[in-house]
């Protein structure tokens, strides 16, 4: 299979918050890319920088206190970090759309759903008539499986259930046929039967429309189910990146391995749950060395003295850990200790 072109290519992205406690490097030198039609998962525990990464791509980092301090965000080969606010407004909702965990943050409670959808189209399709916008809105509502689409156009967000609101958000995100959809914890606030409906819908839309998707989640089950490739983040950094199959079957970074071993699996009962000791660190609290070192059972001197780079462990797999440094002769032995 020939590789499809990259829709988004993020290189060395740095986004910091400047607070009374100093600079918080929420996203610290992050690289990743998404190819056309691909579903990429970004996974990690709370505070690791998932949302700030997506806000950076959207040009929505709250500023102050936040600021992109370095790197490039190449969207169709143009660097979004160089775009003006006006240029970003043209991109948002048109070429790149985003849906959030809580749909009420992006739906205005005071306006009818229909008006909000039509408005979202007309911002970008200035030559469209109201009638065309209406027809498109209804068409998208039907596409995302909302019943009574015409009637819903006249209802207010609070009249809908959480699952229906998330469908409206997806419909709104897809109105202008974006190349890239960023979904930040889109099902986290939903019940599991409703989550199943939404994930199924997103998968179908990705197949039918070919929209590339970045799915951000802390739920490893959701990743396994919906993504083709996975980026694992820890403390503002990408610690591992690879195809979903190898991430789950042959995880390499000690953090990824620990995380997978910590999840209770509904299909069988594990005797004891593995647990990673210690706490999730705040980004920037560990200044030198590997940010996972204080919790890592393989850590040795080098891990606290130097910061590990990403090592390529297969052509499509990278891991930020000295165990995979080809120069570390005994690193093989270290990795086999645990598994």
């Amino acid at each position, binding site marked *: 299979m020939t590789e499809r072109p990259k829709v988004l290519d993020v290189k060395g992205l740095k986004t910091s918050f400047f607070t009374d406690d100093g600079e918080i490097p929420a996203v610290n030198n992050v690289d990743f890319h998404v190819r056309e039609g691909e579903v990429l998962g970004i996974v990690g525990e*709370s505070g690791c920088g998932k949302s700030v990464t997506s806000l950076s791509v959207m040009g929505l980092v709250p500023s102050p206190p936040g600021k992109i301090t370095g790197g490039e965000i190449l969207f169709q080969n143009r660097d979004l970090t160089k775009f003006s606010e006006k240029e970003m407004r043209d991109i948002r909702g048109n070429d790149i759309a985003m849906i959030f965990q809580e749909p009420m943050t992006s739906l205005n409670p005071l306006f009818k759903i229909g008006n909000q959808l039509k408005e979202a189209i007309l911002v970008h399709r200035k030559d469209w008539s109201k009638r065309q916008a209406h027809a498109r809105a209804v068409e998208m509502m039907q596409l995302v499986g909302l019943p009574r689409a015409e009637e819903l156009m006249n209802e207010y967000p609070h009249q809908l259930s959480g699952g229906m609101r998330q469908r409206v958000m997806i419909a709104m995100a897809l109105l202008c046929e974006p190349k890239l959809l960023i979904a930040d914890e889109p099902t986290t606030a939903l019940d*599991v039967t409703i*989550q199943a409906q939404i994930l199924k819908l997103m998968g179908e839309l990705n197949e039918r429309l070919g929209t590339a998707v970045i799915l951000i989640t802390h739920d490893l*089950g959701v990743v396994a189910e*919906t993504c083709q490739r996975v980026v694992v983040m820890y403390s503002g950094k990408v610690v591992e990146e690879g195809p979903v199959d190898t991430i*789950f079957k042959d995880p390499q970074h000690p953090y990824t391995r620990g995380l997978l071993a910590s999840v209770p699996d509904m*299909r069988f009962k*594990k005797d004891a749950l593995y647990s990673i000791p210690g706490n999730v660190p705040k980004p920037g609290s560990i200044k030198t060395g590997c940010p996972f070192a204080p919790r890592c059972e393989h850590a040795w001197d080098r891990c606290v003295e130097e910061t590990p780079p990403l090592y390529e462990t297969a052509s499509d797999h990278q891991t930020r850990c000295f165990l995979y440094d080809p120069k570390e002769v005994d690193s093989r032995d270290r990795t086999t200790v645990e598994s």
Partner: protein
Amino acid sequence: MTEPLLKVEGLKKYFPVHSGVFGRVSGHVKAVDDISFFVNEGETLGIVGESGCGKSTTGRLLMRLLEPTEGKVYFNGKELTGITKEEMRKMRRDIQMVFQDPYASLNPRHTVEKILMEPLNVHNIGDPKDRKKKVYELLETVGLSSYHAKRYPHQFSGGQRQRIGIARALMTNPKLIIADEPVSALDVSIQAQVLNLMQELQKTLKLTYIFIAHDLGVVRHISDRVGVMYLGNMAELANSEKLYEKPLHPYTQALLSAVPVPDPDFEREQVVIEGDIPSPANPPSGCRFHTRCPYKMDICEKVIPKFAEIEDGHYAACHLYEESRPQ
């Protein structure tokens, strides 16, 4: 067979719905509607279900933090629903609760020492010296250190705060702990720590747990038996292996099939059920699941299925199993 530690019979809680300018009662939210179960000493009973199905209300009814509309709760053979508030207050020494959001349940202006000491003061247990000793002892038990005693809740991470919540629940040496979503707010790696801690404590202190959660993986991991709630009813209850391997109730089947599994090769039989959960203020007639059930029959709209034992220790409320029942 020995008596169960806790027995619940026909428990109901209807919350009045007020409407209009005069706040007249215009209906009721049937948050918990006629549920029965028991919990044996030393076991963990998991209670799962989607939001709003009545899990937390059930937990609070057992503690009598809420007064039941109907039904009986027996603890150690004693009827809790019949005793006075004062007697109930004393009983709470034996029944403690752990909550989802430890931050909301810990007074932010009190030190950990003061927070942990409070249950001992309330129940008048030990002298000040004993109490202090017990605080330090329990901090160690839950994996914290005695120097944490002088700190305030905001100085701890989410996982550590939940350890404090657990320590507080253990201060009075209770027999039963009702844990309402104790790990739902925690990150995966911290969740595993707290689950392991709870299992360890259960062994060493011979505790009985009612573990309420919406995460089906977590509940399977920790529970001996599991009850599944839907819209205020208990749909199914069985030992955990049976419930997960061979669920009887169509709702349990749908719920289990909806859970994403951390294995990209896993091909589940997806029973995606359509539609939303109906409102408990206006629940469907007959079987409450009939609006979403793929096996719905005519009788399901009219007759409420009885919650009954279908196989040994395996209970379900569904008309599909009505014939196979031993008479």
